[in-house]
């Protein structure tokens, strides 16, 4: 970089500028980083030119900045360099991605090349809209960015700079500036970098802390054996509780019973058992095991799916459970940590409830509930948004009392309905298990369509019921399980239900030919 070779006979200087591309999202401080880099170069008497294409891309979109810099040539004191206003694929010395997928985007644009490019990326993720709106898990695969970076870049430095920024009270841009210093890719000293931050004069202390942390981390990364390539953090694993006694005699009896189930099941059964006991009581845990034991124990895959979705179905989301979760010991402390309230600050928490008549009537005994549910006048009265300040006495006590209705839950309309729906499903699973284990498993897994509250719940249940009817129709076919899986997948992806109806029509055509 910027190597001066003796001019060849043509008289052309062989000096070339150092080029830096920064890819950031609007609001990440990409502009600040670029200003620092320019000021750094100028501080040492270099020429530096930066450009960007801000415009509306500032509004949360992906933005690219480009810098070229070069030391003055003593033999041409009156000449200004002619620098490029945009990066050329394969010709960029340093590429900085302020977020992992932005580093990926830099590679896609061909800016990172194995013969020259140092790639510095923050490994944190800031999810794009398309990743977040997917009903299932739409998160992009980070490991592919690492795979590409490890072959595409000459050197690749990646670590979680958002975390460092967070802990130092600064922004990702300051950590990136530190990483740039630590990577020693520019012919400037740490003191030059720090003086640049000081001269800019905004949030100096926090920026310097973040800078130093970023620099030290990058230095450490570079000292590592080059054969060990940077890799993404493993995804968060599922945490299965142990199926073990806890010193509660009745619960421990259930554990002893559950231990007779195949060992592969112990993790999920422990999770399920804890969930249903927590939802209602120990006796409810017994019911859970009864249902589980009614399924033939030789098909482990089926049992595993059943153990999971049975627990989810039994611990359905009702008003009592929400009130319980919102008023529990430990919740206020957790919120305090999440919103970073200091000890000397007072915290008030407000909940956003919108109960419909269905939820309220669901709390009543079946016959009364069914009657009231049909009252439009009552519906109008109840159906509106309510904001409850859980941290205030009146609202807390209200929710606390609702949570206390738990002991009457078995007698409610909602419970009766949930159990009917559940039994219907469990019966179907048992029926299919006898002839087609794969189909029974698929029917188990389709249960993931049901969940959530209010409209979401009824929408999910409608989709689930449609898939169940299709399962009944498909039973006996070789490809029945495959179809049910496919339908579940379509239903999951499709928030409105239109695609599912299309897929169901396709199922119908299977029978037309027959």
């Amino acid at each position, binding site marked *: 970089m910027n190597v001066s070779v003796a001019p060849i006979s*043509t008289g052309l200087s062989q000096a070339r500028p150092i080029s830096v591309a920064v890819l950031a999202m609007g609001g990440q401080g990409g502009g600040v980083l670029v200003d620092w880099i320019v000021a750094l170069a100028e501080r040492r008497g270099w020429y530096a030119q930066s450009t960007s*294409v801000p415009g*509306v891309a500032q509004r949360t979109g992906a933005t690219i900045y480009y810098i070229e810099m070069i030391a003055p040539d003593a033999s041409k004191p009156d000449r200004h360099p002619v620098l490029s206003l945009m990066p050329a694929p394969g010709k960029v010395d340093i590429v900085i991605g302020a977020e992992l997928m932005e580093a990926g985007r830099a590679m896609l644009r061909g800016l990172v090349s*194995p013969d020259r490019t140092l790639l510095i990326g923050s490994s944190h993720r800031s999810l794009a809209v398309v990743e977040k709106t997917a009903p299932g898990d739409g998160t992009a695969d980070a490991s592919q960015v690492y795979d590409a970076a490890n072959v595409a870049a000459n050197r690749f430095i990646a670590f979680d700079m958002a975390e460092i920024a967070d802990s130092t009270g600064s922004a990702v841009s300051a950590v990136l500036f530190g990483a740039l210093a630590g990577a020693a890719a520019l012919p400037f000293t740490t003191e030059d970098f720090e003086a640049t931050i000081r001269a800019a004069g905004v949030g100096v202390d926090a920026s310097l802390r973040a800078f130093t942390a970023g620099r030290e981390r990058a230095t450490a990364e570079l000292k590592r054996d080059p054969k060990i390539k940077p890799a993404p953090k493993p995804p968060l694993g599922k945490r299965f509780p142990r199926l073990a006694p806890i010193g509660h005699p009745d619960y421990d009896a259930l554990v002893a019973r559950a231990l007779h189930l195949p060992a592969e099941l112990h993790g999920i059964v422990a999770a399920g058992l804890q969930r249903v006991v927590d939802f209602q009581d120990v006796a409810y845990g017994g019911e859970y095991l009864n249902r589980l034991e009614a399924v033939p124990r030789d098909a482990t895959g089926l049992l595993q799916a059943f153990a999971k979705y049975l627990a989810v179905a039994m611990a359905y989301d009702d008003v009592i459970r929400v009130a319980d979760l919102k008023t529990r010991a430990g919740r206020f402390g957790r919120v305090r940590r999440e919103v970073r309230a200091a000890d000397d600050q007072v915290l008030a928490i407000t909940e956003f409830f919108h109960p419909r008549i269905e939820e309220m009537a669901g709390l009543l005994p079946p016959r009364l509930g069914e009657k009231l549910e049909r009252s439009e006048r009552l519906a109008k009265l109840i159906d509106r948004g309510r904001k409850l300040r859980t941290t205030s006495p009146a609202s807390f006590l209200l929710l606390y009392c609702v949570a206390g209705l738990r002991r009457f839950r078995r007698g409610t309309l909602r419970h009766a309905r949930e159990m009917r729906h559940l039994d219907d499903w469990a019966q179907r699973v048992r029926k299919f298990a006898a002839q087609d284990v794969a189909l029974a498993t698929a029917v188990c897994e389709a249960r993931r369509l049901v969940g959530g509250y209010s409209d979401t719940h009824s929408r999910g249940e409608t989709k689930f019921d449609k898939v169940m009817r299709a399962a009944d129709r498909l039973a006996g076919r070789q490809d029945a399980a495959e179809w049910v899986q496919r339908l579940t997948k379509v239903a999951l992806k499709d928030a409105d239900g239109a695609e599912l109806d299309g897929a169901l029509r396709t199922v119908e055509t299977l029978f037309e030919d027959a």
Partner: protein
Amino acid sequence: MAERSFAREVEDLKLGAGQEFRGEGILAITKALLECGVSYVAGYQGAPISHLMDVLSDAQDILSDLGVHFETSASEATAAATLAASVMYPVRGAVTFKAPVGINVASDALANLTSGGVTGGALIIIGEDYGEGSSIMQERSHAFAMKSQLWLVDPRPDVASIVKAVRDSFDLSEASNTPVMLEVRIRACHVHGRFASRDNVRPSFPLSRALEQPSRDTNRIVLPPASYLHEKEKIEKRWPAAVEFIRARGMNETFAGDIDDIGIIMQGGMYNGVITALREAGLADVWGETRIPLYVMNVTYPIVDAEVIEFCRGKKAVLMVEEGQPEFIEQALHKILRNADIPAKLHGKDLLPMAGEYTAQVMGQGIGAFIRRWRADVLPDAARAPNIDRVEVDDKIRALADVVPPRPPGFCTGCPERPIFSAMKLVEKELGPHHVAADIGCHLFSILPPFNIGATTMGYGLGPASASAFNVPAGKRPIAMMGDGGFWHNGLTSGVGNAVFNQHDGVIVVVDNYYSAATGGQDIPSSRADNRSRSTKHPIVEAVKGVGAKWVRQIDRTYDVTRMRDTLREALTTEEKGPKIIVASSECMLNKQRRVKPLAAAAAKRGERIVRERFGVDEDVCSGDHACIRLSGCPSLSVKPTSDPLKDNPVAAVDNSCVGCGHCGEVADAAVLCPSFYRADIVSNPSAFEVRFDRLWRRMIGALQRWRAGRRVMFEQEAA
């Protein structure tokens, strides 16, 4: 107040002779204007020249010290019409806006101005919004110069060249009695560089003198027979005068090279790209030395025929590097060379693409092809055959195309426009989809996920106008969007007035966020801020009623999704005839945060009671359905993985960038989604009573919670 303050940079405008100016391209232009003795400056904000307007706004004191009048115009047409001051009087004026959309709006005034001609130098600085990052249709401003016979200056994209172009352009304008357009591309507007500054110059002819001693000349007015005279004058006097001036001043530049049987001609703005491409091919260096001769057209209209002929004489071939389409200059060169019997082969759009930005890659390929065809012998081996094995690299990178998500711009965290579209989504669920005429502004992000609302855009402020045809009996009404910026730009007359007059039955939603937000938060007539040099606080509702609208609803808090939805529903279903106008007002969050944050920090430091709001999600209540995100798309509302083995999907989570606008909670309520959201009010410096009550109540709550915990089975993770 604009979203970016230039208070520090403005100091650089005071630099004098012998000092070096360092900074962004548009700042340098501002400085150059002052050095040229400009009397007045006007303009309309918009990328990439918003900063120019913001700098001038922040520099009002310096401007008034110098006797320079500065105005934020109502539209580009207003800005262009401002140049009328230079028709009769020897005053220099400059206006600025983005191009080509700004020129579209201004073209009526520009055509009139150019027809009569000018006495004082008239400069139109256009920020050419073309190529990557552009937010508008891809067209050229060149055609405007040709049709009106005004001159187009396209300087080399470095700060020193741009500043020189400003100085030359005023002289050119005065020498040829013609307004001059100075075109600066988007990257050049934001290029950082340096130039040797000069002293600022006070205008020699104050505007007040023009008012006190007015003069007129019927021959300068566009009315027959003067207009016929103007056309002749343009061709017989002004054009030749311009060509003569350009040549004498040396505005265009020729760079000699030893490989002189070929050459490259380019628009000034392409120069750095050409040098970089030549440098990569080993034929130029970073200091601008080149082995291929170059002719740089810093003035792209008019063309100086004699210079072209001189450059091409004796060459086998020349390449014209001209960005944009159609290839106006290349066509002109063909005629010039043919008339002069110059045999040089002319290349251009045959080797370079007809459409699209001339990126470094495109330029490298085009210039490479030209040199390989005519002088392959001068290329170094590496430039002819690069030998890096990239197979594995390319495969892994190609795979990223399916991984890296698109990240278009969208509504900011806490944006007050988001709830308007959430409400529209909810209405859509009830009444079915509607035809929605969109408009220019941040609200246009509604066309993207997660909202996917909006069918067309026809230009700034023309949303309601673009729904005009849909004024027929039908089961549904059209909805037209318009921002407050577009409203004052022309929408009041073209949209609302038109709808009233034609008894249009549609719905018009005016998004009022207190600023011209998309262009950088400048003030407009309905802004709520105190602005010492502008008159603000003129309600949109009053203006709308003033032109005769009857069904008008003002919503003062757009975050109230329920109310927003109900009002929209009413507008779509009411029996009342005529336009239904909803003015939805809440302050732009980006600007609000910039305004409020320092105030809150200062108040907290003083020990005052401060409440900070933010939202959160109870992870164990969230079902992972993401319906809330599909109605929001807020950057701070995201998803995170969960370790709960009973949950299949990642759960919703609110990160620390949350500004507590409340949208997620309101949507969860209006759409009856789920009770996972909570709002946390964090009180700094609480009152003594507050603290005591809080402590007491927390103790009581703790006791109740412990009592209940003691009566249930407790598992490990809860205790942790």
